[in-house]
């Protein structure tokens, strides 16, 4: 997907093949002979089946293309088919000491969880289990990152690479997306980097015809998102959260 097209997009980018007729009631939802299935290389089987009950596991064991094991949605490698990762230099500047710093945007989701944990610490967020963090990144539709790469002038080799920003969005790949976990290193804030991250997420989502983009903003950042085109409770639509009894 070119990163610089500013064309009008009158119709959605229909990248899915036409749906195969699924008229027979007993036919499993993901028929093996569907081109959709083949294109995704088995991904259709990988919808999570969380903690299937005993009878369900027996029943689903009988259905050929479905198992009762807990499986995860597709890994980022398979996602490449649907969402081409992008990476480009956002800004390049020379510091007074002669070192060159590049800020690189990437939507490939190549985030080291330890780097992310360190960044979350910097912005003051409570610690979260790393395994869950890794799962959350893996199962997000888009993970956009900003890295700072510094090198001394004259050096060919990449210098140190530091994670300075991240934003991610979950999605059903068709209608809805929710943006979570937007953060920028405090020493890099105020430069419009957060804005770039969010605009890129929105752009990518809209280009995929995913039109319901929401997020849950802390009161301190409501204005930030308003400036980016988000509206609080539009037409009275509010988020509600589950409370265990």
């Amino acid at each position, binding site marked *: 997907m070119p990163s610089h*097209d500013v064309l*009008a*997009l009158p119709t959605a980018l229909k990248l*899915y093949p036409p*749906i195969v007729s699924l008229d027979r*009631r007993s036919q499993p*939802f993901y028929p093996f002979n569907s081109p959709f299935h083949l294109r995704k290389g088995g991904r259709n089987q990988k*919808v*999570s*089946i*969380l903690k299937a009950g005993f009878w*369900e596991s027996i029943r*689903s064991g009988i259905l050929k293309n479905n198992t009762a094991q*807990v499986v995860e*949605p597709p890994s980022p490698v398979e996602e490449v088919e649907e969402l081409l990762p992008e990476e480009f230099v*956002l*800004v390049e500047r020379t510091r007074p000491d002669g070192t060159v710093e590049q800020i690189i945007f990437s939507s490939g989701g190549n985030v080291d969880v330890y780097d992310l944990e360190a960044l979350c610490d910097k912005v003051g967020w409570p610690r979260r*289990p790393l395994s*869950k963090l890794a799962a*959350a*990144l893996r*199962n997000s539709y888009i993970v956009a990152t900003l890295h700072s790469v510094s090198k001394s002038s004259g050096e060919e080799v990449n210098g140190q690479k530091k994670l300075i920003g991240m934003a991610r969005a*979950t999605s*059903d*790949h*068709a*209608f*809805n997306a929710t*943006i*979570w976990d*937007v953060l920028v290193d*405090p020493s890099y*804030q*105020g*430069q419009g980097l957060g804005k770039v991250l969010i*605009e890129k997420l*929105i*752009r990518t989502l809209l*280009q995929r015809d995913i*039109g*319901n983009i*929401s*997020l*849950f*903003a802390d*009161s301190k*950042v409501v204005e*930030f998102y308003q400036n980016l*085109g*988000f509206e609080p*409770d539009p037409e*009275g*639509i*509010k*988020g*509600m*959260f*589950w*409370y*265990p009894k």
Partner: protein
Amino acid sequence: MAVAAAVHHRGYLTSKFRSSSPPSPPKIAAEIRGNTTPPPPISISTNPAHVNLRHLRELYAICNHSCHRFPTVDAAGRVEPVDPAKLHTAVSHSSVVVSAFTKPEFVTTQSSTPSNFIGVGGDWISRVAAPVTPENGRLIGFGRAVSDMGFTASIHDVMVHPALQGRGIGQMIVQRITRMLTSRDIYDIAALCNDDERLFFRECGFGYDVLGSTTMTYTRSASKNEPMISAGRRLLLVPPARGLTK
């Protein structure tokens, strides 16, 4: 102006964290509505293979449910039919998919008469000997959730056939979704609601955010020559690709 660390990540809310201030939803929802008819025999499946796409589209139509947050509504108040390819994509990328089935005879245009549900008598034999299953039943309810399988989830498209609403089936569906998620240690479960849906979700045990976050949706519209996509009746502006101005 330095922007703070942006959206509250909604982090990692354990049940311990949450037990401090839950709102208490009304427990006897059906009685409050004045409708005490229990639901017909229902089979609930969380197996995505049990979802027949055509029947699901019909259910969306009969429930007049749109996948767009701001749907186009015609003069008769009906939303446009859901795009089949997109529905397939959405369901196949939902972490939790719940379908509710009942025997076709229970789905009538008028509410079923109470005589169908007399516990002792002819009915119990058919319940035991020929229980409803996803294979022999008719799809009358649905719900799905999208999750990152780590911390958060959002629930979408919960619907029940109009002839069977008000009998607790919707609550059963939501309860199954939340149980599936909490069994994977995901407690941060969100549902975006309009006014009608709000009452329903309250009865399912949902409330406003204890952390006080503001729900925000992208609504910036495009004018004529700007790049846009349509989302229901809204035309959303696609932000231009650009570098930093500095």
